[in-house]
């Protein structure tokens, strides 16, 4: 019974495919999976916009959208209709072709990232041998679409936003990759399916998730920082800082194209969250052995939504960074820490089982963190700031 519920989508797909002639079955299978991804994640996007607006509202002691439907849950539908029926304006001096291509490239690239995410037991579009590399390669190509959008708009705000976005994404891609490499080192595979399988084991009913190791925990924190920056989320939302750049690189977009950018941004959040869940939180595996009867895809999506909620929570809490703070943080703190973490993971790998490696690895990471943090705090780099004119 539990198994059927777990595999229900897989069985459903097989059943649908088996109806058709053998010649087109493989293509149909892929098509069905693609359709499922294209249907599920925008739906999740709609849900997320409500959660975000309601949640941010609550954090600011407001109610949030509450007019459309009960408790405002139909708000995304209203928003969708609004943006679909709005006039699509292209600035006269804009580069029309590039301006048109940019949102398409973004959305297509972001969607491709979902192809390798295992969303449940046997639920992945392709089990690619180099899945992680594919994911990052696709992630890297979204930068170009952002540049296209910013440059083709012929707007200073757009261009500034795009340059900021590209600089930021390039800077944080390095720690993002580096913090994931740790997992690859330990698992010995770039395949996300294998990574999840490696975590889907239990000792005393507790899972073998990588976040429950010193290096995994450190990597997870840095992955979160880098992932937040990679998706241009607050507090790293300089590229679209409303108070400075109108809307950043998509200032000149309206109507459906704007909606596509919005969608792309949220899909990026989902894919980074999904990757984080896969790498560190055991993907679709249950958090406790006794909870294994719950279908695996529920675990995956609840982990993704949980990280989305945390992202929203962070957005409601932290103010925006300044450009130099952003860059300093990436290159002078996160990147060295990820490099150190690589070393720690290597030590972990070669120390063999036992309590000793826990102590050694935690000591190194914590020690460096505390020392660097204290020194930098003392140097007033990351510490509380006092502003001369803002007393």
């Amino acid at each position, binding site marked *: 019974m539990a198994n059927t519920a777990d595999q229900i989508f897989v069985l459903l797909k097989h059943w649908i495919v088996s109806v058709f002639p053998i010649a087109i079955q493989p293509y149909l299978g892929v098509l069905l999976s693609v359709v499922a991804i294209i249907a599920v994640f925008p739906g999740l996007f709609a849900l997320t916009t409500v959660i975000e607006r309601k949640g941010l509202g609550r954090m*600011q002691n407001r109610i949030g959208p509450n007019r459309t439907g009960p408790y405002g849950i139909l708000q995304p539908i209203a928003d969708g209709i609004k943006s679909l029926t709005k006039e699509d304006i292209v600035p006269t001096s804009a580069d029309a072709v590039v301006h048109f291509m940019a949102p398409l490239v973004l959305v297509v690239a972001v969607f491709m990232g979902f192809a390798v995410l295992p969303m449940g037991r046997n639920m992945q579009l392709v089990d690619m041998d180099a899945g992680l590399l594919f994911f990052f390669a696709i992630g890297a190509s979204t930068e170009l679409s952002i540049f296209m959008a910013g440059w083709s708009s012929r707007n200073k705000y757009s261009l500034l936003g795009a340059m900021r976005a590209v600089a930021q994404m390039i800077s944080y891609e390095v720690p993002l990759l580096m913090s994931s490499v740790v997992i690859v080192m330990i698992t010995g595979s770039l395949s996300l399916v294998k990574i999840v399988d490696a975590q889907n084991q239990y000792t005393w009913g507790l899972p073998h998730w990588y976040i429950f190791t010193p290096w995994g925990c450190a990597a997870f924190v840095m992955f979160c920082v880098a992932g937040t920056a990679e998706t241009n989320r607050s507090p790293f939302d300089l590229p679209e800082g409303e108070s400075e750049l109108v809307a950043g690189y998509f200032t000149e977009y309206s109507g459906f194209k704007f909606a596509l950018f919005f969608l792309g941004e949220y899909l990026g959040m989902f894919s980074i969250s999904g990757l984080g869940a896969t790498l560190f939180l055991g993907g679709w595996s249950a958090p406790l052995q006794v909870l294994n009867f719950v279908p695996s895809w529920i675990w995956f999506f609840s982990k993704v939504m949980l990280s989305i909620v945390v992202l929203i*929570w962070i957005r409601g809490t932290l103010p925006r960074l300044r450009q130099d703070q952003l860059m300093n943080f990436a290159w002078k703190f996160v990147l060295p820490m990820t490099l150190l973490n690589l070393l720690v993971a290597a030590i972990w790998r070669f120390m063999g089982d036992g309590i000793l490696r826990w102590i050694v690895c935690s000591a190194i990471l914590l020690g460096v963190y505390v020392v660097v943090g*204290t020194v930098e705090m003392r140097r007033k780099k990351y510490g509380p700031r006092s502003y001369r004119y803002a007393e």
Partner: protein
Amino acid sequence: MLGEGILKGLKETARNALGSYVSKERLTTVEYPEERLTLPEASRNFPFLVYDGTDWESGLRCVACQICEKECPPKCIYIEKSKDKKPDAVGKAQFYPAKFDIDISVCMSCQICVEVCPFEAIKMNTEFELSTDNRFGGLLLDRKELALSNEYYHQIHPTEASEVDGRLAAERAAAEAKAKAAAAAAAAKAAAPPAAKPAAPALNPAAAPANTSAVPASEIPSGPTAKNPTGTPTSAATAPPAVQNNVINADAPRAPETDGAKPDAPSAITKKEGDAS
């Protein structure tokens, strides 16, 4: 410790988010169309015209003196004085505004019209849901739309309205007493049959000064007696003249208490008229 502040901030926002479900005083949002805050009594938005009694047209306190029109800084009031006179709420023949429009898209809610009105005829409304789908005519209110009863005035500004009513009543009573005294004095002095006549003429000078800037000439507190020679008798009734005098003097008793602000108003009018002409 590095990162401590972030955790502190996260705690605070979480407290806010969860607390807004628990405690009512945290969530201060008023869901407007369904829930409304009671407006503070002193709130004001755009002017309206007060009328006494039940019929707005005959009960308008406004006598089309046009002071407000002249004083209005953004010039949003348009008044056309009537050619004839009509009896007002108390039956006294008066000029009335044949046309009284306020363009509330121009009005800046400064309340100067209320300050200068000698007849307590224009007051500030609190109504703010004034949106209209007609871009040009919708916000140009004519006198029918502007006219609102004294009861309504009591409703929106109870304290102020009762003050105004009390003042009007007191003035009316005082003027009546004065008129009676004057009439009595006149009767006693002249002891002649046309004794009632001298009291009556006061009304014309009374209305005239208000809109022809001759107010300074008529600002003598002891109105009736001084004005006796001028004016023409229009009605034989003795009570109406008394009321009328009352109205004329409406601003006279107020002059001392506003410390010269009031005496200025008429002179300002004269000056402006001089400019205009």
